[in-house]
């Protein structure tokens, strides 16, 4: 196995991130020690089933975790190792620096673009406002920039479209506007949370192609959250597989699909329906369902569903997480390997 070259600079380093939701029913550890790096010009695919913590990770980075959730540990270092290093975990979510980072350095693309857009204002007004919030520009310069952004995301006749309201646009065009909004602050990190899940398949292909082009042009560090292994295969350079608030495997995309290391990844890949299937082909299944994060099994949280369980060890203590920069699985069967820096 060849190490993957990752010479690009680290834009964001997540270390041991922990997020808890406390309620009367008890404490839910939504994230339980998550670590990974985002690199300029590269796409990290984050994949997992509902409740695995992929969206909470995104919301934590932007400091928009809903109450009663809160960050209880770990660091999120923007520009780590530089003079300008900032730990997002220590910033007040409402503070000026955090507001400047959110939508500025770090852009967010939602599953449903209407989350980011208001019904009551034109597309143009909203993008102009986003542009002005993060740049010192006059109104007319901001308007020019908004038109340019709409053109960049492939919206036909942007000078006319700028006067449209979001509800006048198709789902595909709305997501393009959502992407333009995310780009308004010239981000060098973009988090896309299931950006194509609500879209039809031909539109999805267009939006994925657009994301790839924009990333290459702007050298963006892209964190792409999805439940779709096909989208991962299409887009990711590296992949983090999450299960119940932990990264259970981290690997370059070709390695992940060719030689998955974690039993959960193996099972997940075998369970995915394929466009290449034989007629009436059955799928391998994983027994049971993802447990509620409030009822985390002891030891390795995957052990009750694991077909490759070793024995008592898997039930008694959690396996070590995959250290950042390494390829491997958080599993007693696996020995993580160094990737070349």
């Amino acid at each position: 196995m060849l190490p993957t070259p990752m010479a690009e600079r680290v834009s964001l380093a997540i270390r041991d991130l922990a997020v808890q939701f406390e309620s009367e029913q008890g404490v839910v550890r939504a994230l339980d020690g998550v670590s990974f790096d985002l690199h300029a010009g590269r796409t990290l695919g984050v994949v997992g089933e509902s409740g695995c913590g992929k969206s909470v990770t995104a919301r934590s980075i932007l400091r928009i975790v809903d109450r009663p959730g809160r960050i209880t540990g770990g660091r999120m270092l923007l520009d780590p190792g530089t003079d300008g290093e900032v730990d997002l975990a220590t910033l007040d979510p409402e503070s000026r620096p955090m507001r400047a980072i959110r939508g500025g350095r770090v852009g967010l693309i939602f599953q449903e673009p209407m989350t980011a857009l208001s019904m009551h204002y034109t597309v143009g007004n909203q993008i102009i406002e986003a542009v002005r919030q993060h740049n010192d520009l006059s109104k007319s310069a901001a308007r020019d920039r908004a038109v340019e952004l709409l053109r960049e995301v492939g919206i036909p006749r942007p000078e006319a479209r700028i006067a449209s309201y979001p509800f006048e646009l198709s789902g595909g065009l709305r997501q393009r506007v959502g992407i333009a909004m995310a780009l308004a602050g010239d981000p060098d990190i973009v988090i896309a949370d299931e950006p194509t899940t609500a879209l039809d398949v031909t539109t999805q292909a267009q939006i994925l192609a657009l994301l790839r082009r924009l990333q290459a042009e702007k050298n963006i560090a892209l964190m792409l959250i999805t439940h779709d292994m096909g989208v991962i295969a299409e887009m990711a350079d590296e992949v983090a597989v999450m299960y119940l608030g932990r990264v259970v495997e981290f690997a370059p995309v070709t390695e992940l699909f060719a030689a998955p290391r974690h039993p959960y990844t193996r099972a997940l890949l075998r369970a995915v329906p394929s466009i290449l299937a034989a007629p009436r082909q059955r799928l391998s299944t994983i027994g049971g369902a993802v447990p509620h994060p409030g009822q985390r099994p002891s030891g390795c949280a995957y052990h009750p569903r694991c077909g490759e369980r070793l024995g008592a060890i898997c039930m008694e203590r959690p396996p070590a997480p995959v250290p950042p920069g390494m390829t491997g699985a958080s599993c007693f069967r696996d020995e993580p390997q160094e990737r070349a820096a």
Partner: protein
Amino acid sequence: MNVLEVENLKKHYPIHAGLLRKEVARVRAVDGVSFHIAKGETLALVGESGCGKTTVSRCILRAMPVTSGAIRFAAGEGRTVDLATLPKRQVRRLRRHMQMIFQDPYASLNPRMMVGDIIAEPLKVNGVPAAERRERVRELLELVQMPQSARSRFPHAFSGGQRQRIGIARALALNPRLVVADEPVSALDVSVQAQIINLLLDLQDRLGLSMLFVAHDLSVVRHVSDRVAVMYVGRMVEVAPTDALYRAPLHPYTEALLAAVPAPDPARRGHRRVAQGEVADPIRPPPGCAFHPRCPYAVDRCRAERPELAPAAGGRWVSCHRAGELGLTGVA
């Protein structure tokens, strides 16, 4: 023998405007669709949002009145009825022969009823005596691989996949002649989705189900269907046996759909052509073939003349002026 034969089905919605509520336009949601489902066969109805696939399924169940066309249903004892024109009251009597599996297992089960009662409800409505009902519920729980203890619990105690099993058991309670499944696995996580797909395959084998499987996910469809019907802007563009359709599509839209699906294989990355443009507006469909503005093979005739669904070799149907001369690319 065919369980269902749909012929030239149309469902148009008028759009009214102005003081006199004059009809100003029509949404041609379904505009002349024909297909059949043989006994024991699963036909998948696929297409992107707004193509009319859900409208077709709702017309078949007579959840909405039909504008025109015939829906011939084999109602048993050699009797065939036209659901399109049958009075509502008689449709209700046939309902036991046509059951539905829904997309959202959270919304489709009554939260205040115990699972045993949910499954037994269609039996009760149809006058099955209590002792027989109990036995049938036991069989059905076994069929969908749920523990017998489930019968005295409420839906909230179950995961999405288990709820979908309960919904399937309810749909099968009366041994329906036709099951209409509308996106039955699209709300489920991958690992649960695989369980339900396998269950549907088992049930097809064991019970010889006849099923209309409405779905947008072409990967799921390849696993579960015998034939596939592809819709675009209210019309059928291609109908073919599943494997033939995926390997060698005859309609350019089918080719575009297949090419757009990301395969779970990084080696195939970037090897696909992305269809340009957007799905046409069913209020103002383009003249000629509705797909022509997006079709890389379109010629003048496609812009002027609407193609009709016509038979092709191998039991296939296609609606394209250039069918057979294009050599389109499928997925192996």
